[in-house]
């Protein structure tokens, strides 16, 4: 049984329906990517899993339990973490405080996890006293990742983690994600850097206008002519 099972999900914002019968599976320790054109509803899938959209039907099961009715603070304790697409750091807090907030649900802040994050993103250690809002775009992205890793989740939702990163960091970010994944955390990722994402993931979904369009292994999607033509730019 998959860790995360989305079945026939309808969701949207207020009266506006965006997702129309979306199905998705993320096995435990799997690495899944969602790609698709702008506005397809990729971010909406992620937000729906985290209870941030208007639920309109279908089911979302995590670890065999229905989570579609729960709020984010409940969901996070079950082992999911989420890095939103934008606005993903506390701009007024220092870098360190941002990380501490990532571990808010724990009793104390585990110093070892902070260390681990610093190791992965040394710039954060250097800037730990700086207000997050004044970091560069790329630095903020790293901080957001770091914050989500503080809980050592079972499933990590990443909304365009490589956007705005310099090439070396893009590669590094993907490597880190691989590592995280290899260490046993399942990853569900939305990426516009579709080629790289599909190359690395186990399974990929192509989402168009709120519906599943294609679904296969990453490799297969990369090789699929229709997918290439429509979404990967030749």
């Amino acid at each position: 049984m998959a860790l995360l099972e989305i079945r026939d999900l309808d969701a949207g914002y207020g009266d506006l329906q965006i997702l129309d019968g979306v199905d998705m599976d993320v096995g435990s320790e799997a690495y899944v990517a969602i790609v698709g054109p702008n506005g397809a509803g990729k971010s909406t899938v992620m937000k729906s899993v985290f209870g941030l959209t208007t639920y309109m039907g279908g089911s979302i099961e995590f670890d065999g339990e229905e989570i579609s009715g729960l709020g984010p603070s409940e969901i996070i304790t079950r082992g999911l973490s989420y890095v939103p697409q934008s606005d993903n750091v506390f701009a007024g807090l220092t870098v360190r405080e941002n990380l501490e907030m990532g571990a808010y649900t724990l009793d104390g802040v585990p110093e070892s996890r902070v260390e681990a994050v610093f190791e992965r993103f040394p710039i954060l250690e250097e800037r730990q006293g700086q207000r997050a809002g004044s970091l560069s775009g790329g630095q903020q992205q790293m901080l957001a990742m770091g914050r989500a890793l503080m809980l050592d989740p079972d499933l990590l939702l990443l909304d365009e983690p490589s956007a705005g990163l310099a090439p070396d960091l893009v590669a590094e970010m993907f490597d880190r994600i691989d590592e995280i994944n290899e260490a046993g955390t399942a990853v569900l990722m939305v990426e516009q850097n579709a080629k790289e994402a599909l190359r690395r993931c186990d399974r990929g979904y192509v989402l168009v206008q709120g519906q599943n369009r294609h679904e296969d292994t990453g490799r297969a999607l990369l090789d699929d002519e229709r997918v290439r033509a429509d979404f990967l730019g030749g």
Partner: protein
Amino acid sequence: MATDTETNTLVAFVRERAVLIALGLFVALLVADLFRKLGTGALTAASLAGFVKDGTVLGLSLGLAGIGLAMTYSILNFANFAHGDYITVGGVVGWITAFLVTGLGSFEAQPLVLLRASSRTLGISVTTAPVAIFLGLVVSVVVTAGLALLIDRIVFRPMRGQRGIALLIASVGVALAVRYLLVFTLQTGPRGLTAGQATPSWDLPVGGGSVTITAHEATLAVLAVALMIGTHVLLRYTTFGTAMRAMADNEDLAQVSGIPTERVIRTTWLLGAGLTGAAGFLIALERGALTMSFGWQLLLLVFAAVILGGIGSVYGAMVGGLVIGLASRLSLVWLPESFIIAAAFVVMIVMLLVRPQGLLGGVTTV
């Protein structure tokens, strides 16, 4: 061209500092004039000391009343215009309690509850009825906090995530409703609370004259400082404080980080409104009288204090309160009485223009 640029940046530099420099000069001028006035006897040391005392007492009242406002301001990101009426509620319920505790048995209940009983015959003061005053303080804290939670549940909670201005408008509605429900039940008109003759006071000799400090002024000062320090410690040395700021910053992200946002908000109201209730009770104690709109009348000055100190900074609220209090009283040295409130507002506006983040604050709301 190079020199052009240099002048450009120099101009910008000077322009940025010019206001500050001008302000500094202005204050220095005032201080110099103050000494001149003292020297020539146009102003006696005793009356200056009187101004300072009045200003300090007012300042501590404002500071104390401002902490709650600063807390809710930073967390919920809106200027709560009902805050003044929370002050009033604190004063009213606290004093009804004090009246009942002192008077029940020897007086009729109704005038006690309506705060209509003669404060003279009741004879309440810190020395004659410390228990009544203590209980009044406790009740004012509890009831005001409860009221704030209730109002949050009914009014503000359904509006979570809306822009600050929408919440501000709702709070104006709350302010009107609360104030005039008080008026509806208790009617207008000032109420005397403490017994003047039973209140000890001390004359401190200053220069040729003296300054009178009453026990109630002293009580206000001591409790205000104690409560401020307590709050600071609470916020500074708990992760709760950081969580509060995180929420103030980005509520969505706080949510997905697993911060129980509702609980943080409730705790903030509880603390903030409790302090506000206490402030209302103590201010009424010091003044010895209250009206159903005394909190509202204080509100703008409290805002001034909080803004001056920097929204969201507890120390800022204290310092801001003192600055506003002293500025308004000391302005009497130069200005006619009718301008002292205006003077305090001018200080606030100038401050906002020169240093929008406040004296001590970092967080600004936009």
